[in-house]
């Protein structure tokens, strides 16, 4: 327990201390909220979709959580580069404790980032429709955060340096995000798009969050959303633990 706690605490301290990183990573979601929310809002409403900001906000929160979680998981590359990773690798504790501490810490950071975006959306005019559902929304954000921090850890465990980072950004993180239904409704999509969004775990995260924040807006249904998210989370955690425990220095 001590190991998991101290590594969780480390992630938090690093997050709170890097103000430029916090502010920097809020710029993008804010841009999406404003540019898309207000830019596409009128046309979305004319098409009969209702308030676009209400639709978009869960997607933008998910985006912020996805990015922060993946980055947190991939901090292993930094730690490898700056040497700190070795300190944890020779410690007399099971590797999965280390992996779990880092992952839960990274997920906590990503959740915090999601909450800040939520607050920004409130200022922009977003209104959650049910207060009762808010704790559930928080739970879903944490679940999504955990899933993608574990995935980031798994990916970073097999990367030796920053070279592969851009590759992961463009071929994994961006597609996950753009093909998740964060910006567009999942109904009535062309066949191929529908198929892709269905195998993307983030789709279920966005959908679950939308379902809890905005009434009757879930596409898959909360039951399916939570099942898929939980299973994907466990799989990523297992994969991350396996790959992390195989690291040699």
């Amino acid at each position, binding site marked *: 327990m001590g190991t998991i706690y*101290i590594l969780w605490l480390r992630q938090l301290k690093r997050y709170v201390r890097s103000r430029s990183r916090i502010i920097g990573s809020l710029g993008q979601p804010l841009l999406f909220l404003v540019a898309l929310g207000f830019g596409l809002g009128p046309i979305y409403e004319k098409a009969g979709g209702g308030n676009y900001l209400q639709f978009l906000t869960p997607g933008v929160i998910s985006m912020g959580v996805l990015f922060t979680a993946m980055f947190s998981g991939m901090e292993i590359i930094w730690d490898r580069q700056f*040497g700190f990773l070795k300190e944890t690798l020779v410690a007399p504790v099971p590797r999965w404790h280390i992996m779990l501490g880092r992952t839960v810490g990274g997920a906590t950071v990503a959740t915090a980032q999601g909450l800040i975006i939520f607050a920004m959306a409130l200022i922009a005019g977003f209104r959650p429709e049910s207060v009762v559902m808010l704790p559930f929304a928080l739970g879903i954000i944490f679940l999504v955060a955990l899933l993608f921090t574990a995935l980031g850890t798994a990916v970073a465990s097999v990367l030796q340096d920053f070279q592969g980072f851009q590759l992961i950004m463009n071929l994994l993180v961006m597609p996950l995000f753009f093909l998740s239904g964060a910006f567009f409704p999942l109904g009535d999509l062309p066949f191929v798009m529908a198929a892709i969004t269905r195998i993307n775990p983030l789709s279920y995260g966005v959908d679950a969050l939308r379902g809890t924040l905005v009434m009757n807006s879930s596409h898959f249904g909360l039951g399916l959303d939570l099942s898929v998210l939980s299973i994907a989370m466990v799989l990523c955690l297992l994969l991350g633990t396996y790959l992390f425990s195989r690291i*040699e220095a």
Partner: protein
Amino acid sequence: MNTNAIITVKNLTKKFDDFVAVDTISFDVNQGEIFAFLGPNGAGKTTTIKILTTLLHPTSGTVRINGFDPEHQKGDVRKSFGIVFQDPSLDDELTAWENLELHGVLYAVPKQLRRERMKQLLEIVGLMDRKDDFVKKFSGGMRRRLEIARGLLHHPKILFLDEPTIGLDPQTRNHLWSYVEDLNKKEGITVFLTTHYMEEANKVADRIAVIDHGHIVAVGSSAELLEQTRTQTLEDAFLALTGNTIRDEAATSVDQLRVFARGWQKRR
């Protein structure tokens, strides 16, 4: 076998694809001694340390650290040693104090004892007044001192020092070695160090193993090495050894041929 040995290595080999980094080396390190691995860059010093400290799997051979096998009893082995790596391994975004605290928790040192030792060690390495500063503000020497303090926090039986003085000024270097010698005498901690500075090995080590191209070419006190090589200084001895005029006792005739061939190619 040597019953006093705390580290035993037998026929240890490590291959990376075709490259043999460590080639069937065998040696013992006795409890309470300062043992040095002396060799040029790329001789296999760090690879050996990584295997001894569970960071790399050996290709073949057996290793015992404090009686445990690094392949199968990782936890017990890891509890037995402290290590100062060749390159930095601190978290820059944490303070000196937090780095020590994290280490203490990882090694399950009880809170009160941990705090006590952290204060003590920070005093000894002269960083007490900088304990709440971020490590990123520290100079190379300060980082090294902090890493040494950290390596000792859990009172290991063996301290591994992998080229600990690289990049340090003579003052810090001296300070560091006198501290390590002191620890060795007072606490009986076994010290395993690697270096390519002859005078350092000469000054601090009880016994020296000269390693070159993955082979141990000689083991003994610096006096013994001088005698073996009939040289006046350890530097000459080192050059004589790594120039391959002397064979490792355990070397096979094929090895000797290979060594001879290499020496001959060099001369041409």
